[in-house]
């Protein structure tokens, strides 16, 4: 209505469904699906980024368990 009021002509013809923009979660999940189905590329990415699977954390009660992959290889630290 605002567009009409401003004198802007709207496109004519059959109504076209506007595709909703995928949410971030959808986009992340899409990339994760690609990672699952392209293990060779995933291995390459992990190797390039020196992301190594930490085997022992599962058995370590005092250690964060939210990393499946961690770049211990080059020892980055925080945001400072």
């Amino acid at each position, binding site marked *: 209505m605002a567009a009409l009021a401003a004198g802007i002509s709207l496109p004519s013809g059959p109504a076209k469904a506007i595709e909703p923009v995928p949410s*971030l979660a959808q986009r992340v999940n899409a990339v994760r699906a690609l990672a699952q189905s392209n293990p060779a590329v995933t291995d390459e990415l992990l190797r390039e980024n020196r992301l190594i699977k930490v085997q022992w954390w599962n058995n370590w009660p005092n250690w964060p368990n939210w990393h499946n992959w961690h770049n211990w290889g080059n020892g980055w630290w925080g945001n400072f």
Partner: protein
Amino acid sequence: MDQVRFPELLVLQATPFCNINCSYCYLPNRDSRHRMSIDAVGVISKKIFDFFAPLPPDISIVWHAGEPLAAPVDWYRAAFAAIDRNLTPGTTVRYSFQTNGTLLNAEWIRLIKDHNIRVGISLDGPREIHDLNRRTRAGKGTFDATMRGVRVLQDAGLPFHIIGVLTKASLEDPDAMFSFLVENGISEVGFNIDEIEAENKSSSLSEESAPAKFVRFFTRLIELNELNGRPLTLRELQHCVALILSRPPDFVSTESSPFAILSVDHLGNCSTFSPELLGVENAEWSNFIIGNLLTDDLETILSGQRFLRLRDAVTRGVELCRATCEYFEVCGGGAPSNKFYELGTFEGSETLHCRLMKKAITEISLAYLSARYAQPAASTAQA
């Protein structure tokens, strides 16, 4: 709190002093030449190790919050010996220096080699970018002195990374940044942003056009890296790729997790959450100090009002992020220090730091990963 684990990052301040005077530095006491006593190193490390026992096999101690190399080499040899005396068998410490590099010399190289210390150099890029902000007290640029330090490390064959602070000026020319890094044999690169924090009251990146310029900068840097056979490892991309590929359940950022980071100043005062909270002045929050490891034990600190108040405020901020921001899954609640200094409260959500270092980096990383998955693996392509 549910469970206290050994900090992922233990930051010790040998001295608050810094031999240079960067314009964006958040630390107010960088003129102070005080130093942590070796006795204090022993007491502090023993308290921490005893409290968190059993220790994991590898622990990491970063010397920072001031220029670490402003303390003498012999001080570190004594400090490491004091720490070693308190370690339990089966645990090794990996030390790290985050340094401006200007004081590196053969004596430091011996220490670094003897103890296999990781080194991060604070270097903002080419001279005209670096010297804009990283200056001496007399106002002179520190580029030459920092690059001398880089050469000392390279000549000794020691690996290192750099951390550069991105300002409005550095975003203008990603090609120059890429060329500078590659031509100088620098391969491990992390970027922070010119943040609004404590003493640094404004950011050159606050203007509306900054996110678009930031995305252009990183996208071009990644593009150049791909075109040239990936000579650089970019920390921001690396971190985000790890988070996207790793499906972390119920992830809360390290800076927002109690005791995931423990920062201790030269007097034994300690803080947790963002390392930038320690060493700054704030009366309302008792300078964000939750206790003193020379006089208090960690049980008392953990049940103390200062820690609990800080924890509750940070947690409410994280919950606000969780409820309102779709990037929470790959961010985990942001950086409390940025919230506090930008929004005036820990109980806020989006900051400049979020917009650039979380949202923009996530979008760049998703685009990068999508492009990579659109191509066959190099091994497959060659076969």
